C-alpha cells in the first residue's frame, strides 16, 4: 500500500517536472522571440556544460565532452 503511494507520488512528481521543464523551455524560446534563426546565431558558443546544441542547422540534446565524446545524444550531433 505504501509502496504504491510512493510510486504514484513519483509518477505525479515526474509528470509535474516534465510539464514545468517544457513550459520553461518554451519561455526560453520566447526570449529569443520564437525565432529559430536568432537562437541559432546566438548559439555559437558551445561549452561542455551546454546541453542544447545547434550544429549545422540541426539541434541536439546531450553533453559534448570533446570530439565525438558524447553523454546522451538525442538528435543529430554530426
Amino acid at each position, binding site marked *: 500500500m505504501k509502496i504504491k503511494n510512493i510510486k504514484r507520488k513519483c509518477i505525479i*512528481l515526474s509528470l509535474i517536472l*516534465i510539464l514545468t521543464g517544457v513550459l*520553461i523551455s518554451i519561455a526560453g524560446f520566447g*526570449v529569443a522571440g520564437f525565432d529559430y534563426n536568432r537562437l541559432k546565431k546566438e548559439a555559437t*558558443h558551445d*561549452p561542455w556544460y551546454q*546541453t*542544447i546544441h545547434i550544429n549545422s542547422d540541426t539541434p541536439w540534446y*546531450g553533453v559534448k565532452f570533446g570530439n565525438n565524446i558524447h553523454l546522451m545524444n538525442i538528435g543529430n550531433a554530426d
Partner: protein
Amino acid sequence: MNKAEFLNELSFCLQNMNNSEKNKFIIFYDEMLSDYVENGMTEEDAVDKIGDPKKIAEELLADYGSVKINLPFTGIRGLNYILTIIGFPLWGSVLLAFVLMVFSVYVIIWCVPFTTGALSIGFFTTSIIGIVGSPFVMLKNASMGIMQLGTGIASIGISLLLGLATLGLSKRLIIITKNLNAKLAALFKKKVIVG
C-alpha cells in the same frame, strides 16, 4: 493372478515412486478390486479387467514425472563411455546450441530494463549538468540558458519515470526468469527408467 499378487507386482513396479504416492495408488486399486469382487466377480476376473500391473505402473510413472527411455547399451560400461566421448561432436553441439539459445533468451528479455536503466542514468546525469550549467550559459545567451534549465528539469522527470519503469520491469522479469529456471531444471530432474 489374484488380488494379492496383482497388488504386490504393482507395488514392485512403482518402487521409483515415493511411498506416500505409491500407497495412494495401491489403496485405490485395492478398493477397485474389492468393489469388483463385491459385485460378484472372482479375483482373477477383476484383475484381468483392470489390466497388466506393469502397464498400469508405466502409465502412472509417466504421469508422475518419470520418462521411459530406451537407452542404447552395448553391455560393456567402458565401451559406453568411449562411444559417449566419440559422439561428443554430435550431442555436444546440440547441448551448446541449447545453452546458447537459453542464454540469448535471457539476454533479449533483460535488454529492455537494461535500456531503460541506462537511459534513466543518462537523462539524470545530463539534467544535473544542464541545470548546474544553465546560469553560466545564461550569461552568454539568455534564451539558450533558460531552455537548458527547462530541458534539465524535464530530464529529471523523464529519468524518474524511466527509473520506475526499470524497477517494475526488473521485478517482473526476475519472476519470469525464476519460473523459466525452474522449468529448465525440471527437464533435467526427471527420473529415467531404462526400458
